[in-house]
């Protein structure tokens, strides 16, 4: 029972059964229709030929009388392949004709015989029971005349058609069921092998791939797609693993510092000011940790695109001007000159908060790492222009810049250049800038300002990005 139910749950099996039933019913209907049609046509032929015969005989009878009619019957009944002719008295006793014997009671009713009746021909030595249809008329002198036609041949023909059709349709149904069974079984086998591979992948075998038969059929196409999807997932997974390794490593350091501070402070006895100092240290460290976490979350939120929904047209000129204004006093205090050349009315599609944060991070970086090596007065140049429909922003300093080969790495989370490790920072600033740029479909370039760093952000034309 369980097995049967399982069998029925397979689509191929259910389809097979459904189609067999439908096909069988149609075939049966077809057989009956064809045979019924054949019978009808044959009966019509019989009727027509008997009626014609009767008409000819009655003409002879009217013109020449009964004797001529009977002799005409005699002639006709001897002709090869002749119809049946019987002349009988009112009691049904055969007086003349070419029939030796026939089913009793046939002669009693005037008119058409409704069903084929059996009879034996005069000249038939084999005494076979033959079948015929006939019409019986009453002659003016009370005698009865039967004109009939053998339907043995048509009946055989009908049987033949019925048998042929039944055989053809029966074998078609059988073949169909068999075909369905094998096709279904093959599909089932493929599905099973795919399911098997999926199980293995789910149980941790990352390198397992769905089987490909090489025939290029729809299963292969599907498997190919799924396999490339698995490759992509693996790649993303690798990236994620690397990131979480980084995070684990980079968060361990401040956590260790916190732990050590607390431990050392617990060992120190009765020293309130020392304890206080330790607590303040712990507070600062944990606040930095929270900041790092927030920055990480921010990056992943931006990367996952969950902030994309709030994108709308923004006046980038105003956004940059506001940030420059925010930083201007701080820059001046650190002996930086903020020079800005911002074309007005630059429109991009984006998120004000994130765009502000991007520019802010870049100016932060320039202030931190862009100190001029050979003069007291450093400068940061911020430009925003429209060229060929694209809005491009550049933020350039004259600091040490990024050494060749590290260009790609500085965009990674937690990556910090050797020379900047002593400065405060989390190594997440540029990673966030990169994520925000990507979210805005902007390209980020890190150029050499000779000396210094020139960060360029190229926004797509607003018509294209919408």
């Amino acid at each position, binding site marked *: 029972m369980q097995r049967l139910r399982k069998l029925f749950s397979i689509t191929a099996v259910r389809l097979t059964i459904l189609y067999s039933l439908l096909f069988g019913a149609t075939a049966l209907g077809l057989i009956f229709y064809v045979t019924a049609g054949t019978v009808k046509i044959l009966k019509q032929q019989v009727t027509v030929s008997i009626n014609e015969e009767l008409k000819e005989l009655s003409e002879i009878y009217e013109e020449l009388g009964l004797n001529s009619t009977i002799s005409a019957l005699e002639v006709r009944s001897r002709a090869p392949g002749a119809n049946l002719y019987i002349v009988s008295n009112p009691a049904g006793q055969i007086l003349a004709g070419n029939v030796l014997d026939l089913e009793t009671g046939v002669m009693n009713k005037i008119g058409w015989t409704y069903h084929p009746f059996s009879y034996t021909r005069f000249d038939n030595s084999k005494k076979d029971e033959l079948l015929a249809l006939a019409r019986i008329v009453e002659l003016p002198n009370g005698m009865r005349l039967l004109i009939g036609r053998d339907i043995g041949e048509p009946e055989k023909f009908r049987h033949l058609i019925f048998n042929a059709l039944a055989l053809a349709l029966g074998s078609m149904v059988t073949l169909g069921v068999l075909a369905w069974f094998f096709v279904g079984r093959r599909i089932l086998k493929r599905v099973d092998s795919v399911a098997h591979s999926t199980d293995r992948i789910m149980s941790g075998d990352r390198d397992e791939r769905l089987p490909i038969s090489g025939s290029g059929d729809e299963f292969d196409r599907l498997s190919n797609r799924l396999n490339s999807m698995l490759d992509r997932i693996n790649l993303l997974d690798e990236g994620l693993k690397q990131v979480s390794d980084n995070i684990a490593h980079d968060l361990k350091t401040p956590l260790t510092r916190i732990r050590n501070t607390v431990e050392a402070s617990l060992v120190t006895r009765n020293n309130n000011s020392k304890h206080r100092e330790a607590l303040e240290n712990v507070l600062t460290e944990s*606040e930095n940790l*929270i*900041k790092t976490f*927030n920055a990480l*979350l*921010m990056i992943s*939120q931006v990367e996952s695109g*969950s*902030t994309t*929904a*709030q994108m709308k047209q923004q006046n980038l000129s105003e956004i940059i001007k*506001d940030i420059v*204004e*925010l*930083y201007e*006093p*701080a820059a*001046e*205090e650190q002996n930086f000159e903020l020079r800005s050349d911002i074309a007005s009315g630059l429109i991009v599609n984006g*998120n004000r*908060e994130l765009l*502000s*944060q991007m520019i*802010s*991070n870049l*100016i*932060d970086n320039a*202030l*931190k790492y862009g100190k001029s090596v050979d003069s007291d007065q450093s400068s940061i140049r911020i430009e925003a222009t429209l060229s060929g429909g694209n809005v491009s922003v550049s933020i350039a300093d004259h600091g040490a810049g990024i050494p060749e080969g590290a260009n790609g790495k500085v965009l990674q989370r937690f990556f910090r250049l050797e020379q900047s490790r002593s400065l*405060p*920072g989390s190594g997440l*600033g540029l990673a966030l800038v990169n994520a925000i740029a990507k979210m805005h479909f902007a390209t980020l370039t890190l150029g050499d300002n000779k000396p210094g760093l020139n960060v360029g952000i190229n926004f797509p034309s607003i018509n294209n990005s919408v």
Partner: protein
Amino acid sequence: MHILIIEDDKQAAEYLVNALDEAGHNVDHAKDGELAFVMCDSSEYDVLVVDRMLPKMDGLSLLKKLRARGDMTPALILSALGQVDDKVEGLRSGGDDYLTKPYAFSELLARIEVLSKRKIVDDADTLISVCDLKLDRLSHKVFRGETKILLQPREFRLLEYLMKNAGKVVTRTMLLEQVWDYHFDPQTNVIDVHISRLRGKIDKEFEFPLLHTIRGKGYILQKDSVD
């Protein structure tokens, strides 16, 4: 100040109740939204501190229901959700301020004080004065005593915010949010320099300073020094 803390986490609630009590406030605690709704009906509070995720009735629904009832008690929403649209949603539901967990207690305290109903300055007042410092919100003119002080537009807004909340501590984050409308923390301490510029204009060359820095917390505008 009479404060109602609506927070389901027992430890967090205990910490808040103790710390606010220490700061001299009268604190009640409700552990779910429905209880808070009843408590708001029976007593008068100056500020509500609402956790966003609450059993029975969440923080935003509670605020919506309170506002629908005509209860306009200022509310500070605490939440682990920190995205900009989460904040917008929180403020739309009737919250007056939004703070993301984990937060510094000093930040929370400063925000509660600023939210309190007992505002010194009515939003409708065109003229704000603190001691001998006067600010006209219509003509955008600022005087210290008889001396006219010229301010940049942003400096004017900064001073306006500080004067509106005179006598209360305002944090750097609050200034960034309220004066500049930024919800991120710039790494460079940009606010301090803006304050010191403002201080150069309103305090320098005058008898006594009005704008004070409170180390590790923020700034306060008042006659007397705090330390």
